[in-house]
């Protein structure tokens, strides 16, 4: 098995509206190593959410994955049936959504909703099943059962076990008195607790990959700090891979190991968190850094905003999507989107300034025109 849990290759997702094709994700590729947190950062309309909804195949009509491969643990998710995808969703890939107020069903208790997920996806382990089989008195039937188990077929978890498991995970995410609180309805939970319950729901089937789509944006800073702390703990203890989508650079710096910067449906730059924060090589990434206040006590620096506004995806600019707002834009930028040039082992930037024929601009490192794979 490869060291990558997820490989996205040339993914394109579009929405076919009355006004025309909205190209939300335009040809993105990346690989994700096991057991890290990948941050995807971008502004609204940059395609960060749609790209991850494509992974879990939750892009609704009129949206469609037009092109590309998504290899998850050796399976191409774009090719499997809806039924198969439903089995994977929740058990192998779980999702945490932005708004904890609307992503829980208000007419069911937390218990109902948690148990439903667990009972649908979780089977008991081989060891447990074997132990159960040994208790069967009829030798003939016992043999058959053991054979079935050895073929990898075990029974689904039952309601009692599911409840135990649900309570265990609620405790893990820090909900006080989970035994009694689990019987409550979502409206009886506060915003932070609902988000914790959703995290518990995502964890409960022990998925290999969790996609968190702006899970802290709707929360207050003090609650956000609690949830980030929880995700860090989960990463350490459970060794799950997490894709974390946000527009907040501070959250990325706090939590993530690797970062992808998206703009206008394309990847602008990717690298380790230190690359992106201390050695940004793309004009857009640099612009983002200058747009947020980093004042030192006693001196105020004026912010340097990025001029203009984000592109219209119905009618995206030709070439690099950032070219109308880029102060370094060259002729080639208006013609062709730049490929990802490798800057170091970990970092690559989609900017023509990295090409060997490009002029030297201060503050940008030259990659020598090596393309990233």
């Amino acid at each position, binding site marked *: 098995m490869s060291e990558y849990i997820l490989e996205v290759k040339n993914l394109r997702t579009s929405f076919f509206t009355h006004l025309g094709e909205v190209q939300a994700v335009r040809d993105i590729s990346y690989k994700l190593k096991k057991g890290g947190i990948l941050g995807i950062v971008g502004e609204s309309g940059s395609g960060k959410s749609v790209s991850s909804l494509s992974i879990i195949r939750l892009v609704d009509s009129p949206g469609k994955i037009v092109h590309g491969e998504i290899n998850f643990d050796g399976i191409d998710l774009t090719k499997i049936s809806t039924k198969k995808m439903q089995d994977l969703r929740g058990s192998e890939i779980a999702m945490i959504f932005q708004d904890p107020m609307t992503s829980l069903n208000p007419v069911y208790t937390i218990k109902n909703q948690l148990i439903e997920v667990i009972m649908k996806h979780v089977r008991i382990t081989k060891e447990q099943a074997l132990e159960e089989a040994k208790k069967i008195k009829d030798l003939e039937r016992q043999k058959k059962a053991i054979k079935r188990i050895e073929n990898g077929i075990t029974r689904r978890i039952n309601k009692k076990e599911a409840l135990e498991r649900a309570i265990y995970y609620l405790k893990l995410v820090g909900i006080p008195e989970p035994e009694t609180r689990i019987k409550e309805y979502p409206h009886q939970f506060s915003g932070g607790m609902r988000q914790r319950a959703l995290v518990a729901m995502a964890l409960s089937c022990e998925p290999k990959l969790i996609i968190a789509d702006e899970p802290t944006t709707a929360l207050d800073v*003090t*609650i956000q700090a*609690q949830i980030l*702390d929880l995700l860090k703990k989960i990463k350490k203890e459970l060794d799950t891979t997490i894709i974390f989508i946000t527009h907040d*650079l*501070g959250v990325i710096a706090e939590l993530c190991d690797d970062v992808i910067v998206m703009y206008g449906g394309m990847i602008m730059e990717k690298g380790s968190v230190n690359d992106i924060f201390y050695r940004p090589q793309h004009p857009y990434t640099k612009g983002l850094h200058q747009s947020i206040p980093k004042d030192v006590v006693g001196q105020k620096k004026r912010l340097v905003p990025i001029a203009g*506004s984000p592109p219209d995806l119905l009618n995206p600019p030709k070439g690099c999507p950032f070219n109308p707002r880029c102060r370094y834009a060259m002729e080639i930028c208006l013609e062709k989107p730049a490929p990802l040039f490798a800057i170091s082992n970990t970092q690559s930037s989609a900017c023509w300034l990295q090409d060997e024929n490009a002029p030297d601009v201060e503050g940008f490192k030259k990659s020598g025109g090596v393309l990233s794979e």
Partner: protein
Amino acid sequence: MNKKEVLLEVKNLKKHFYIKKNILGKIQKTLKAVDDVSFVIYQGETFGLVGESGCGKTTCGRTIIGLYENTGGEVYFDKKLISAGSEEYALNIQELKDELSLKLKKVAKDDFDLREALKKEYQEKIDIEIEKRNIAIKKEKSAKRNPRDIQMIFQDPYTSLNPRMTVAEIISEGIKTHKLFTGNDIMERVFYLLETVGLKREHASRYPHEFSGGQRQRIGIARALAMDPKLIICDEPISALDVSIQAQVVNMLEDLQDEFGLTYLFIAHDLSMVKHISDRIGVMYLGKMMELAGSDELYDQPLHPYTQSLLSSIPLPDPEANKISKRFLLKGEITSPINPKPGCRFAGRCKYAKDKCFSEDPLFEEILPNHFAACHYVKDINDLK
């Protein structure tokens, strides 16, 4: 720091909402959104108001401008009283009367002496309240606001502009109402304002839906500027915008301040942006002001335990700094402002809380020069003399 002139003074401002009344109209549940908040804003400065959702910062702004009537307290603008409230005294009187009748019920009917004593005692208290109420009503009547002086920029640029009006109509509405300009001058003024906020003349005839979020917020700012205000209340003006657009709007607000000598009350929950734009900052929690200081000082040396944990909760856009920075994680969440218990509002989440915090309201005092905080044990926590 040279003493500047006070532009806006807020004195013991209270805004209560009555959620539940019984059939007799008696109030059973009170939401104390703003409860006894006082501060001043100096001419030409930016005063930041921060806090978590539900802390009353927006209500505070809306009460100052008069979108809500204040329950109690006074607001002075340019040393003139612009609004005052008397409702709290009426409620106090009601409460005293209720208390009296409750006590009377417990006393035996033939114990005339005790009954008389009780009645007399309460009547005295009620008289004091009535006196206060009469003064407050007089003040309320004398309060006069000039609606042009204070303007507001709203949070959501998508809902705060009327979709059926063109940009020119939106901006000129106030000009026409107050008859600031007439005839062709109105359109000239509109064009001038549009150019001031970085839009073009030809945008005047368009409708709000044709603009992006950042541009809409610019229209909202132009509408506020049209009145030549002295104070602009910015209620989360950038929180609905993208990062790269936020910086554009913040820079523009700073430019306008220099050009027109504006004063801002900047309400926001994005603490790093508030620090960037404000000269002084007030931190609110559940309707009370917790701490107030110059922005550098507040971030450098927060005194109140709430401010300390609030500031340490902000993730910094700097991975290495995050690793070494200390976190004071808060337990639990903001409690309900409905019928709050006596004592410090923050006591339930505070790690330093002692018995006194649950029974007695802390006073909002000047702990260091120009640095106020409301905490019983602020000196012990920070090792101050």
